[in-house]
């Protein structure tokens, strides 16, 4: 392993090439098949952004964060009351309690929510040429995936779904994901920020350095909010981490057995 890395470093004189090599090495020297943090490689999180050979930013790695979990308002650094909820949506938010969170019923998180400290990955296909698809793989919650169709168009009238219909394109080094066609069932956070099927999200993912990935997200839902609003969440790389299995509904005490409402 060491020998392979040394060869890679000596062959790659350019900075970008070195970044690719380190990224590749991380994938190999990891964690005994994803069994935890005991074997974490020491990596400078402020190191250079890794790139594929064609120059495209490599979003690879296991990340945590990058979206709201507990409270979109607080975590998005909004002032109290600053998020422009329509009166009915404010009333609904105030009536919600964490016990009714669809997330607790093992339902998908939707967009842009993330799951605390469970890691997730961007995976692109194909890997070493222009991607046609980018997938988000989540460990939890739930153990699911989302797909982004690159350089594509939205269908005219997509059926409402938990993750909606996502199209993506690169704007310089930022992956811009535009999503419509959501259902209204998921909550943006545990606090219960609501939305309607009119929801339209625009995520701008920018890998600032090796270990930090910004998600500047705009939420535009005229059904629940009086105007679009934007904030940024930052995902943190977890070197050596791997996605593990997490099947929320295996024995969920008050989830699937009771039925999602």
């Amino acid at each position, binding site marked *: 392993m060491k020998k392979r890395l040394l060869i890679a470093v000596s062959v790659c004189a350019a900075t970008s090439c070195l970044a690719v090599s380190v990224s590749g090495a991380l994938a190999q020297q990891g964690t005994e098949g994803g*069994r*935890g*943090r*005991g074997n974490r490689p020491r990596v400078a999180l402020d190191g250079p952004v890794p790139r594929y050979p064609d120059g495209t930013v490599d979003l690879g790695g296991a990340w945590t964060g990058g979206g709201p*979990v*507990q409270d979109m308002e607080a975590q998005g650094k909004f002032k109290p009351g600053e998020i422009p909820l329509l009166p009915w949506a404010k009333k609904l938010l105030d009536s919600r*309690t*964490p*016990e009714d*969170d669809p*997330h*607790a019923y*093992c339902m998908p998180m939707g967009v842009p929510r993330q*799951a*605390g*400290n*469970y890691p997730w990955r961007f995976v692109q296909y194909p890997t070493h040429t222009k991607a046609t698809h980018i997938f988000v793989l989540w*460990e*939890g*919650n739930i153990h699911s995936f989302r797909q982004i169709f690159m350089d594509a168009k939205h269908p005219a009238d997509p059926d409402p779904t938990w993750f909606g219909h996502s199209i993506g394109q690169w704007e310089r080094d930022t992956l811009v994901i535009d999503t419509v066609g959501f259902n209204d069932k998921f909550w943006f956070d*545990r606090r219960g920020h609501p939305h309607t099927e009119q929801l339209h999200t625009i995520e701008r993912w920018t890998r600032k350095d090796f270990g930090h990935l910004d998600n500047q997200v705009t939420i535009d839902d005229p059904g629940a909010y009086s105007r679009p609003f934007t904030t940024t969440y930052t995902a943190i790389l977890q070197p050596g981490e791997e996605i*593990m*299995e*997490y*099947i*929320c*509904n*295996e*024995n*969920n*005490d*008050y989830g699937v057995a009771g039925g999602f409402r």
Partner: protein
Amino acid sequence: MKATIGILVIGAGLFVSGARLAGHHAFSSEYDENKVVTLKGTVTKIEWMNPHAKFFIDVVNPDKSVTNWSFELASPNSLTREGWDRHTLTVGDAITATGFAAKSGKNMASTRSVATADGKALFGGTQGIQ
């Protein structure tokens, strides 16, 4: 031996860092963070499953009767990251478990920590939410 030290260190670190681990559901809906119980008992069963692993212990009461308590843990993926595996506790182990008691009054708790008979300290990791 190495594994034992690793678990000890991880456990100690987590006591400092607080709610590093989390389950997926609302802790506050089921458990009372102000009602801490510490019980000595013998492990009778381990359920290594999602979304929360559990273990059960027989606790001998002052009147010699025996009460079976269940202690909820974090999910297996989270526990694995913190050094646990499905063999960390085995049936027959004498342990001391500390946790937050259920609001319902049932004999169940959300595990804060476990001390094994040979002195290992383990973090249970269920307080808070994911």
